[in-house]
């Protein structure tokens, strides 16, 4: 399981999210209020909408199109119209960079 250098820690504001594309896939990288980093699939499981355009509030990401809600730490779907959980990925910080663990 390789660790991929995704972005600098400074690229993501506190309580915010950015889009990160890698290969054919797209991801969302979050920074919580306490400075922890998380990574999920980049597209909402309801429709193909980039979550990076949504609102991060507490530990949740709200889809910008239909206001579906996920816990970005676990990927759990919390509010309709989302019913399917998001995929999540391990992250680690090294030398001011965010690394994401992806399967080969």
């Amino acid at each position: 399981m390789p660790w991929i250098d995704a972005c600098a820690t400074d690229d993501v504001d506190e309580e915010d999210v950015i889009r990160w594309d890698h290969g054919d896939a797209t991801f969302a990288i979050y920074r919580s209020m306490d400075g922890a980093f998380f990574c999920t699939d980049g597209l909402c499981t309801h429709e193909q909408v980039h979550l990076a355009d949504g609102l991060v509030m507490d530990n949740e990401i709200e889809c910008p199109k239909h206001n579906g809600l996920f816990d970005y730490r676990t990927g759990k779907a919390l509010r309709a119209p989302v019913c399917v959980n998001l995929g999540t990925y391990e992250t680690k910080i090294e030398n001011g960079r965010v690394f994401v663990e992806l399967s080969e």
Partner: protein
Amino acid sequence: MADVVGHSSLERDYSLTGTRSRHAVEVGLAAAEWYHSDVPRKTLKALMKRRDGPAIRDTFIWIALHFVLGAGGIYFWGTWFSVPFWFAYGVVYGSACDSRWHECGHGTAFRTRWMNDVVYHIASFQIMRNPVNWRWSHARHHTDTIIVGRDPEIAWMHPINLVLKALAFVGIYDTWQSLKVLFRNAFGELSDDEREYIPVSEWNRAHFWARIHVAIYMVVLVSVIAMLVSGSGWASLIPVLLIGGPRVYGCWHFVMTGLLQHGGLAEDVIDHRLNSRSLYMNPVSRWLYWNMNYHVEHHMFPMVPYYSLPALHEELKDDLPSPNTSIWDAYREMMGAVMKQRNDPTYAIRKELPPTAKPYKEDLHLSVPERKD
């Protein structure tokens, strides 16, 4: 304004399982990439920020008005003084519930989730909408706004029946239709369209909430009958004037504002500036409507709460057509277009954009059969 050239039969297949639905999917009009005005991320974040305060204040006033106006109507029962109380109670119940249903359905009114859910269920009951069905229909409305065969919430379907539209202001026909749906759902049935946009996992919840709504209406009906039997006379109407009835006699304001959202504008486009209308309106209507007069702005950025829509409007206005100046101005524009659409459904208002705006996003528009002529 300009006409869209073309002509076709007046009939459209608005069902979600028909030929137009399949066509919309095939040509890419379904779940399309819509035009969005550019807003810096930091600005948008600030506009999206949620607070409980404004909606708690407005909900407190809203609930208090129910009690004060309802009590006034009962206190003055039998005199003409009760009429203005019932008139106002009707609007507070039967019209303000639409915007509360809408905003809490989006989950944007309150920061605290359970508050959104509680008000959503109260408002859904008041407006006689199954809270499960309509959550999903509204999600589809935002995905495929006024796309024929995809959007289950198109108010102005061709051919336009002006008699039904006029009747909507007194709510009788719409209420009857809503009750039929609730009873059908309560008996465990969903229509083909409902099965199309509601996931199977939600069907039982749809039946459950319909049964709750129907049960409450049954209690109201039994109360009316009991009062009649006990010799209360015309006062037996009070339970239905308080619960259920306002959906008929107080709905006019939400119908008036709701018909303006997309009326006279284009079907089958992927730019909300072409199919939605923003307008300025008086502060009372804006309070009842929770600022949904900024409708283009809402469709472009549905995660912005109602209390931030005026600020969003300021941010976007250089990229949007000028809003109509009043409800009257908007009706004059809309009805002019509607009268033309009765003979030519391809006609649509096309508003002039300010010089600062980006051009309309019109790719895919010629994929619509009526526009190929």
